[in-house]
């Protein structure tokens, strides 16, 4: 026998409407949200792809050629086309949100959000051009 009444977590059951698992299919805005979240899978795939490239390059010229041939097979190409669409979607949504995450003050005045977004897109272009230039030099 316990010497005191056991504590029970009795509380009135709250009424909760069941939310369907597929709630995010009903509106474009919530579908866009889930698609944006799913872009992370392709970010992870890219890391795997990049590490495979690094492994091939460090193994030698033949392994590198083999990697490029493997990357040209239709299934891998399809995966990378879909992946590219998703990572571009990630980049666009990320830079569009940047003004809300970055509050920049210059001379006591808040820099307008569109300017911050434009700066982010400009940075994206500069980095992309620099990367292409780096790989196309030779």
């Amino acid at each position, binding site marked *: 026998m316990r010497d005191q009444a056991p504590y029970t977590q009795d509380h009135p059951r709250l009424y909760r409407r069941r939310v369907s698992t597929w709630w995010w299919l009903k509106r474009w805005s919530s579908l866009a949200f889930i698609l944006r979240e799913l872009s992370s899978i392709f970010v992870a795939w890219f890391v795997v*792809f990049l590490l495979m490239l690094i492994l091939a390059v460090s193994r030698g010229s033949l392994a590198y050629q083999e990697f490029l041939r493997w990357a040209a097979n239709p299934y891998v*190409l399809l995966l990378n086309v879909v992946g590219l669409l998703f990572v571009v979607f990630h980049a666009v949504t990320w830079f569009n949100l940047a003004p809300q995450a970055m509050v920049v003050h210059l001379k006591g005045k808040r820099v307008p959000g569109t300017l911050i977004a434009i700066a982010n897109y400009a940075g994206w272009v500069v980095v992309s051009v620099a990367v292409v230039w780096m790989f196309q030099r030779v």
Partner: protein
Amino acid sequence: MLRRTLEPLLWTLFSAGGVLAALLIPVLLFLFGLAYPLGWLPSPSHAYLLSLFGHPLARVVLFLLCVLSLFHWAHRFRYTLYDGLQIKHLNELIVLVCYGGVIVGTVTAAYLLWQIP
């Protein structure tokens, strides 16, 4: 739920990964996933890539890109599973898979970047 004190750190890593991924992944995936395999652009020679990837600065950038992108994935994918599929009751398993993946990826990236001749 992960301990509250850990959450801001994970969010910061997610955010840093989001920036790096947005800046670098589209162009890299376009070049190595499409342009070079399909011959749209002449692919860089093996010797050039080897010297480029072997540069200390490139190793650091590539390591950060891999690790932070994986943190980005882990954080976002975790919440996708919670919100999209409503499987928050599998919290421990999801955390294990996501951050376990980050650890495996980090060790692999460190080894692969370190062993480049």
